[in-house]
């Protein structure tokens, strides 16, 4: 589909959507959002790009094969569960690290966040694998 308006608007929208998807992922633990929603938004961004341009260009823009992203995501999620094993707790017990603690504000890092990133990658990569395959083969 060649539409000047869509192509131009897409360039702007894709960047915004991708940033927003990361935002949704990161804030997900405390406000609506999370890996599933972030991944869906991210995938939507690339689908929009695909519709505006072509699968080939979308693949080039993504740089990596979405199937690899998806499988890596499942791997990352699984590995995040193994961390608990090192401190003798059951598989997938959340491990937390609070950095830069200053009064009530701090930077929380956790295996839970890593897991959510894995979910993001799995959903993002899985859906793009599907859509690219459908777009390309049909």
């Amino acid at each position, binding site marked *: 589909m060649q539409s000047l308006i869509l192509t131009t608007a897409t360039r702007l929208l894709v960047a915004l959507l991708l940033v927003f998807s990361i935002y949704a992922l990161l804030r997900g633990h405390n406000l609506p959002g999370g890996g*599933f929603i972030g991944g*869906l938004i991210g995938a939507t961004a690339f689908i929009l790009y695909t519709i505006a341009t072509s699968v080939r260009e979308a693949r080039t823009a993504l740089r990596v094969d979405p199937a690899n992203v998806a499988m890596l995501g499942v791997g990352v999620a699984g590995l995040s569960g193994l961390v608990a094993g090192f401190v003798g707790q059951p598989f997938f017990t959340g491990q937390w690290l609070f950095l830069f603690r200053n009064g009530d504000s701090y930077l929380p890092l956790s295996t839970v966040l890593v897991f959510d990133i894995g979910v993001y990658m799995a959903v993002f990569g899985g*859906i793009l694998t599907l859509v690219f395959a459908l777009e390309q083969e*049909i």
Partner: protein
Amino acid sequence: MELLLAITIGVLVATSVYLMLDRNVLRFLFGLVLLSNAVNLLIFGAGRLTAGAPPLIDAGAYAPASVVANALPQALVLTAIVIGFGLLAFALALVYRTYMTLGTVNSDEMRVAEPMDGQDLDTGRLGLGKPDPAQPASGREAGI
């Protein structure tokens, strides 16, 4: 509201079942989409409806201040939606591939795996595939 929701779910289920009983696999797929919506609503509704109180904990608090919506069915439905999407996408690919290979979207005409009359079922001896007249099956005939 609960009663109306129950009726709506009933209508959704009835329409999706009718669609899933169609020969045309595309209509079957439409039924699948509606059915997953119906089931998601069912699970969501079974956890009771609470208006205007999302399951979030206010900043500074350690637990929800007042009664908030049931978070458990929400979590279940959220993953169910994504899984349902995966299922639909796979089914779509399957229908497409079937159409490309067999040239039909009519489920009654897809007879490769399950022939209608059962004639092509393997009637050979168990474990040896089709009977081979050159290969006697009984141990005695063959000699040991």
